[in-house]
Structure formats: C-alpha cells, structure tokens
C-alpha cells in the first residue's frame, strides 16, 4: 500500500476519528473532574522569636500539628454545623502542614554545625492546606481552612500566651450546701483571683477593648470592685451582725478546725525556719573560711556577662541569678510569712467564731452559749425572714457575678483571638487550586487521542501493507499476484459488479521463447517493462493490476467504459512499439477486454468474457 493511500484513508475516516476523540475527551474530562481535588492553602508565620528555636512563648515545645488536632477540628465541625456529616478524623486526614524553612538561616545552621557550634533553628513559616473533593468544591476547601485557622489562632493564644484563667468559680454556688459566711468567702476569694488575672491583662494591654462586649479589662475590674465593695461587703456585714447561719455548730466546728490546722502548719513552719537559720549560719561561716567574702567594690568581672542562659531543653531564657545565700534568706522569710499569715488567719477564724457565739445581750442568762443556735436566732423573731432575704440576695449577687463572668469570658475569648492574630501572622490568604488542570489536560487528551488514532490507523495500514506485500504481491512487477486474484474472486462470488467495471487481460504469448532466446533474466526485465507501461497507460485511473501467472496480466478498472480501456490499451501498444529498451526483443501478446453490463456480470463471468475477447498483437523487434 502506498503512503498516499494511508492518508487517503485517514482523510476519509478523519471525521469519525474526530467524533470518537471528542466523545472520548468528554468522558476523560468527566473522569478528571470527578477525581479532581481542590486544595486550599494559606501561609502562616509564627512571629514570636522563640518559634525559630521550636518553642512557643511559654517555653513549651511548639507543635504545629496542633492545627489539625482533634480539639481544633471538633470545634470547626461544630462551628460549621457539620456534626454527623463529616467525621473529625476525615477532615484531619485532609489537612497537610508543610514547613517553609528560611534558606539563609538553614545555611547559617549548617555552617555553625560544621564548625561544631550549637545552632538551633526550626522553621516558623508553614503552608497549611486542606484538600476537598470535586463534589465539595473549592469554596468548601477555603471555608474549612479559614475556620480551622480561626479556631487554632484562638487556641494557640489560650494555650501559649494568655494562659491565666479568669474562671467563674461561683456559678450556682447557692445550690451547694454552704453556710452563708462560707458562700461569701468563696465569692470574695473568687473575685480576688479574678481581679489578679484581670490586673495582669490590664498591665499587658491597658486599652484593649473587646468589640463583642464593648468592655475593656479595666471596665470589668471596676465592675468587680464595685460589686465587692457594695454588695459583697453589705452581705458580709449583715451576716455578721445578725449571726446568720444555717447551722451554728457546724460553722463553729469548721472554723475551729481551721485554727487547729493552722497551728499544726505553724509548728512545721517553726521547725523549718529554725533549720534554715542553722543552714544560713553554717553557709556564711564556710564562705568566710574559704575567702569568698573578701570581695571588694573594685572587683570587676573580666568577661562580658551573658544575660541569657540555656536550659537543659535548649530553651534560651533569662538567667536566674539568685545566689544560694539569697535563696536561704528568701526561704527564711517565706516560711516565716506563712507562719505569720496563718496566725492572722487563725485570728480571723476566732473572730468569726466569736461573732457567731457571742451573746447580743438579748438573753440575760447567756443561754445562747450552750445552744446550737445563735443568740439572734434564739431571740429575733425575724431571723428566718432575714435568712431568706440573705439567701435571695446571695442568689442575685451570684447571678450578677455570673453575668459579669460571661462578659469576662467573652472579652477574654476575643482577646485570645486578637493575641492569636498578633502572634501568628498570615503571609498569604487562602488560595485554592485544583490538583489537576482539567481544561489543560482535556485539550492534551483530545490531541493525544487524535494522534493515537491516526497513528494507530497508520500502523494498521502499514500492517495491511506488509501482509499485502508478503502474500498478495508479485515481487517482480509489484502487481497483485494470483493469490490476490483468487481472494478477490472468492470475495466477489455471487456479487454483481458495478456498472463501469472493466477487466482487461494481457497475455505475453512468447514469454518462453524470450526466456530461451534472451535469458530468463531478460525475460523478467521485459515483464517489468510491460508492467511499467501498463501503469503508465492507465495513469491515475485507480485501476488494479494483477499478474495472474507468468505472462498473464489482469487490469481491473472501475468507473470507466470499454472504449476508454480500449483507448488506454492503444496507448499501451504505442508505448510498446516505441520502446527503446529491449528493442531487439519481439513481444507477442494478446489483449482481451470485457465490460460489466448492468446487473449481469459477476467477476468470474467478466474474467471469462475478457479471456474470450483476447486478440493477438505483435510488437516487432527493431
């Protein structure tokens, strides 16, 4: 088969190839789209200088994987209302965190390590990504990532920056079985602790104001102080004045036990203090004897003093320069302080006991001293009403405090978010890319398919050519051989030929004589020449040429007429007569032509007619 024939076929089937490729491309596009994932990524940077040493501001190890911890992700699931739809583990598995180390610092680290110096550097910039499926879409990926980082920023601040709690310890306090004075003590202690925490916040950021509550820590402190000095002290005063208690015996026992505990603790503290004094004396004596106390004010240290020290965990911190002697002195002071404060606490307890045991003067015989009830309880008819009033007022106070604690918590939460955003900055906001460029790959797939189809066609065509050349081609003339003719006749068995089909048989009758006279080789060359003349004569008519046997040829022409073929054969004769090669060879041949009539001729019949039509011709030797 010739090259042009392959391209002719390709040209013929090109529309089908294109349609096939389009359909296949659509299928590929659908598959690509369904298996495509959308990856949302954001770049974050830990601003704290300790982050480059791998530590959080508190000195704890900084673990960026906390971004995808279940604590964070479960909050994300709740915030987005995805509970029951997505499992936390599923979302966690789709988050990836990639460190972006600073190239300069890495190089510096390697150089230092090569020199044997210690150099700690950990990346503090990270790409956080979330992958969503094609069904979930790019927006889902971006939203999940945004929410995850929102929650993480607040968690980070709460865990590593703003760690002191300001918890509500008085919520529903009245539901417990506390005595009035105990309740008030708990309330007062709770306020005290909260104020200490709030003062720390105020010190760090005095003008911070949460937009959600409109309150600053200053405002909240003022509110707590106001409640303390007005309502708390008022309730305390009334409880003392009217000896209001749920159970005098339990109350007195409770405070007596506190005094006993303080006494025991003080015995222990006294013993410790005595020991410390002994150690201090021994320490000074030893230092004196070793000459360490002979330092004068002229003494100047030789080396520059490093302010920071490196701990066991590699964490750089401000050095604690307290000397042992100072520690001993502070120990002496602290233990004495505990002792003294315990004595004052005991005095307070005695004051409480006295307050509830004392006789207000209402009972002349001092009967209240031996009673389970206080003097006021025994003699004031209004006592129960007062208890009820106090109960209600404590409830009101606790509810007010709870509201204030809610404001504190809300303000603190926002403060955490604020701190989180100041300790971790966003370098690039969430951008979404698809894992596969569907459009690009679709175009590539289309062209690839077209190339593969055409290439396949070429290969198949070439395969056909090889088969044709090996089995159905006459090697001498390049025409189809007898086997081809048989195959053709078989395939056309019983079929009527199209109108315009003309068979032309050419038989070289003196071929054996030529072979004998001019050698077989010359005979073969003559056959080749004849084949060439035949082709030339028929030109581009599309006729098929067959070498049926040694000197017998068959030309099968389509869409033509008997007369046209006759004229073509005249050309052939002229070629033969006017030949210059093998001019010395006389060629004797017969030509038979037959045209298929409409609906009458089979291939075999037409072949027979052509054979019957043979007429002899001679091309003389010159």
């Amino acid at each position: 088969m010739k090259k042009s024939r392959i391209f002719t076929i390709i040209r013929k089937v090109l529309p089908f190839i294109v349609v096939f490729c389009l359909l296949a491309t659509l299928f590929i596009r659908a598959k690509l789209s369904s298996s495509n994932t959308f990856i949302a990524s954001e770049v974050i940077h830990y601003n704290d200088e300790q982050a480059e040493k791998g530590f959080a501001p508190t000195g704890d190890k900084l673990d960026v994987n906390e971004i995808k911890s279940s604590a964070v992700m479960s909050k994300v699931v709740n915030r987005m209302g995805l509970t029951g739809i997505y499992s936390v583990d599923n979302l966690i598995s789709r988050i990836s965190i990639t460190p972006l180390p600073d190239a300069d610092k890495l190089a510096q680290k390697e150089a230092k390590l090569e020199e044997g110096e210690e150099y700690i550097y950990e990346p503090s910039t990270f790409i956080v990504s979330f992958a969503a499926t094609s069904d979930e879409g790019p927006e889902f990926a971006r939203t999940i990532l945004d929410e995850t980082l929102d929650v993480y920023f607040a968690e980070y601040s709460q865990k590593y920056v703003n760690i002191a709690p300001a918890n509500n310890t008085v919520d529903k306090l009245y539901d417990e079985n506390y005595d009035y004075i105990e309740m008030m003590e708990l309330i007062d202690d709770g306020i005290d602790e909260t104020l200490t925490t709030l003062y720390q916040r105020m010190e760090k950021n005095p003008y911070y104001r949460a937009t959600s509550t409109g309150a600053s820590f200053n405002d909240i402190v003022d509110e707590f102080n106001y409640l303390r000095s007005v309502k708390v002290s008022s309730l305390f005063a009334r409880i003392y004045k009217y000896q209001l208690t749920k159970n005098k015996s339990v109350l007195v026992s409770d405070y007596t036990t506190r005094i006993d505990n303080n006494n025991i603790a003080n015995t222990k503290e006294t013993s410790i203090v005595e020991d410390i004094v002994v150690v201090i004396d021994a320490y000074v004596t030893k230092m004196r004897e070793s000459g360490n106390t002979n330092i004068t004010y002229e003494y100047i240290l030789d080396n520059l003093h490093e302010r920071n020290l490196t701990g066991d965990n590699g964490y750089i911190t401000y050095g604690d320069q307290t000397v042992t002697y100072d520690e001993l002195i502070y120990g002496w002071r602290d233990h004495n302080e505990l002792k003294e404060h315990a004595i004052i606490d005991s005095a307070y307890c005695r004051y409480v006991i006295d307050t509830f045991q004392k006789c207000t003067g209402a009972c002349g015989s001092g009967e209240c001293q031996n009673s389970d009830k206080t003097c006021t309880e025994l003699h004031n008819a209004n006592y129960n009403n007062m208890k009820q009033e106090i109960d209600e007022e404590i409830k009101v106070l606790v509810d007010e405090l709870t509201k204030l604690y809610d404001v504190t918590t809300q303000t603190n939460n926002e403060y955490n978010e604020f701190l989180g955003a100041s300790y971790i900055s966003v370098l690039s906001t969430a951008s979404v890319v698809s894992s596969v460029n569907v459009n690009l790959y679709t175009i590539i797939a289309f062209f690839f398919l077209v190339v593969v189809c055409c290439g396949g066609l070429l290969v198949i065509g070439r395969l056909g050519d090889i088969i044709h050349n090996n089995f159905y081609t006459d090697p001498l003339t390049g025409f189809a051989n007898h086997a081809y003719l048989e195959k053709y006749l078989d395939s056309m068995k019983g079929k009527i030929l199209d109108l315009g089909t003309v068979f032309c048989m050419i038989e070289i009758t003196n071929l054996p004589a030529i072979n004998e006279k001019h050698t077989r080789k010359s005979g073969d060359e003559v056959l080749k020449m004849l084949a060439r003349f035949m082709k030339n004569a028929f030109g581009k008519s599309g006729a098929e040429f067959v070498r049926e046997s040694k000197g017998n040829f068959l030309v099968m022409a389509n869409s033509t007429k008997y007369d046209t073929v006759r004229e073509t054969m005249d050309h052939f004769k002229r070629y033969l007569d006017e030949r210059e090669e093998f001019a010395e060879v006389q060629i004797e041949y017969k030509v038979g032509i037959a045209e298929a009539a409409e609906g009458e001729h089979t291939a075999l019949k037409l072949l027979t007619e052509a054979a019957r039509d043979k007429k002899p011709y001679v091309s003389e030797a010159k």
Partner: protein
Amino acid sequence: MLTSLLYKLPYLVIGVFFVIAAVTIFLRARKMTRSEFFKVFKEAKYIQAWVLIVTFVLSFAFGVLNHLNSKNWVSAVVALNYSEASQAQNSNGTRYNMAEITCDEVIEKAIEKGAFENVTVKDIKSCLSVYPYVQGNVNSKEEYHISTEFIVEYCASRKTRHLDAESVIQLITSAYKEYYIEKYTDSYRLKTDEERPDFSKMEYMDIVLYLNKEATGILNYLYGLSEKGSSFVTSTNTTFNSIAGKVFQFRQTQIEENLKSLILQNGIVRDKSGYVDRLSYQNVNTGFDRQKHAASFNLCNQAIAMYSEEMTRVVLVPTWDEVGKYYMGRTKVGIDELSVKATGYSDLVAGNEKEIMDNNLVISKMNAAANVNVNQMADTLVASIDKSLIDFTKEAITAGREFSNYKMNQCIAVSVSGTSLFSELKDILIFAILAYAAIVLYAIAKKDFKKE
C-alpha cells in the same frame, strides 16, 4: 435551571446549523478543485430573506432567554478599606474570615430586612459563593497575597427564583456590613434603662462609687481612643483628650468633691446602721489584710537585718541592657529585692490604713450628722451628674464612631454588578453575528449540494 438550559438552546441550534454546513462543505470540497471551491463562496448569495428571518428569530429568542437568565445571576465586590485588612485581620485585630460574608447570621439578617418569603437561610446560602478577587500563590514567596477584595456571587436556584437577584445581593452585602461593624468595630455603648440602677434604693456613698465607676469607664474608653488617634479632631472640633479632660474634671469636681463632700459632711445616708455596719466590717476585713501586709513588711526588714554583712559585697559586671548597649552592671544581692518588697508591703499597709481611716471618717460623720434633711439636695445633684455622664457617654460614643468611620474609611465598600442593558445588547449582537454566519454557511452548503 430550566432557564439556564433553554438559554443554551439557541447556541445549540446554530451549532447544529454550523456542523451540518461544515460537514456538507467538507464532503463536497473533496471532489472539487480549489478554484471551484472558492467559486462556490464567491458566487453565493449572502443576503437571503430566509437567512435573515431565521437569524432574527433565533436572536430574539436568545435575547429573551439571556435576559431571563441574567436576572438570576448577580455579583458584588466586597472591599475591606481599613488598614488591618492588609494583614488579614479584622479591624479589632482578630483574624479575618471571609466565610463570614455568607454566614447564617448575615443571611438571616438579609432575609429579615428584605422580608423574603418562602425561603430559608439554607436555600439562600446554597445560591451564594464567595471567593477572593485576586488570590495569591503559596508556592512562590513573590506571589504571596493578602486578599482584601472578595467577590460574592448569587445564582438563583429553583427555590429562590421568585426573589430579585440584585435585591438579594444588595441585602446580603448590606447585612454583612452591619454585622461586621457590630462585631468588629468599637462598640462602647450606653447602658439601657434596665441596666441602670435605681438610685432611690441605693446608699448615697454607693451612688458615688457607681458614678465614679461610670466616669472612669468613659475615661478609659477615651484614653483608649486617644492612644489610637491622639490627633483626631471630631466634627465638633474636639479631640479625645479634650473630651477626656472634661470628663476627668467633671469626675473630680462634681463627683469626688461636690457630691461626696455633700454626702459626707451632712452624713447623708438611707440606712445609717446598715451602712455603718458595712464600713465596720470592711475595717475588720481590711484590718486583717493590714496585719498580713505589716507582718510581711516586718519579715522583709528582719531578713535585711539578718543578712550577713559579709555576703552583701557587690562586684561590677560588664553587660548589656535591653537595647543591646554596654554598661557596667552591679551584682544584685538579696537585700536589694527584700528592700523593694518591704517598700511594696509598706505601701499596702499604708493603703489599708488609709482605707480604714476613710471609713472611720465616714462612720464618724454619719454618727455626728444632725437630722437636717438634705437628701433632696443630694438626689438633685445625683440626677444632674447622672444626666451629665449620659451626655458625656453619648459624646464619647459619637467621637468614637466618627473616628472609626475615618480610620476605616467606611470599613467595607460594596459594589454590585449585575448584567447591564448594554452588555445584554452586546451579547445579543455577538449571538446574531454568529447565528448569521452559521446559517449563511448552511445556505451555501445546501445550495451547492442541490446543484450537484
């Protein structure tokens, strides 16, 4: 859904025309010489009545469907105008989250404002999408980008088709703006009547405390604003410091001096016994605290006294300070810290004693008070101070809002872009040209085919 499908139908029709024409011409061209092929186009009639009619009909259908379809789609750009936006933060310094543009609260607010019927938050949410106007690339440092403009798209669904798309997007963005200002901008507010105490039931000295607290609150708010913008001048030609100065002066003169003195000097009290008891309790309580502080003070002093003279030697240390400058430091010894602590405790003791003395003064004044009825005068003064404080609060809030508007440049800017008449006409024109080209090609192919 149906409209968007129908919208594609005219394109499909001209596509079919084009494919038939192209295939026919391709098949015929194979049997033609190049000159014959060009001749067909040269001699073809390009203006034919039926071609024009079909083009017109298709274009008209397209125009109608395009108009209907464009009514269902609209977008808006939300731009963040405040300075913190470039750090991906809200104006209060917390992290910015663009998903909030279409959060449930915003949609709920929009539904409420627009009085939308037969739609749920979920219905509208499913029609909205938000994405950054420009997004960066995390793989290259040079292409990092903090988005400050976001596109909100609304594409009506079957459940929301009865709503006007442009109204929906306008209400969503406007609700978001309100939501944002409410959540992320300064929100110092005036106390409601329910939150304000009933002065007639309060002790006069407690009223002083309360008014003092309120005045301090306003001052704190103003000082905070002053820290952010000390030179900002309001439309009434005031600065935060000038308003704060007025409030401070007012607190000192009206509350601390006038009201407190009036109450104190006249022993004005509603429940003398109760109030005196309360102060007595405070004194007892403060007394215990004083004892503790005094004990700590004494212990520090004792520690200093027992600190061995031989251990107090100091040496000079070359070192550097917080800003990295060298200086000769002196080694600290325990007595340095103990002295500082002792001073601290001494201050606390002094504070406790002052508190006790203050309370004792009040107690003595209350006890010594003649029964002259000056409560009326005090009540009038309280009412007047309270009113002034409300006015100061309003003034502070107004100044704060002015500053917010100035600083945040309206905080968020929104521009809604639907499909304009001009762009619809442009679409129709492009379609008409394509349709005419496809149909003319079809006409040529058919004519050529008939000839054959």
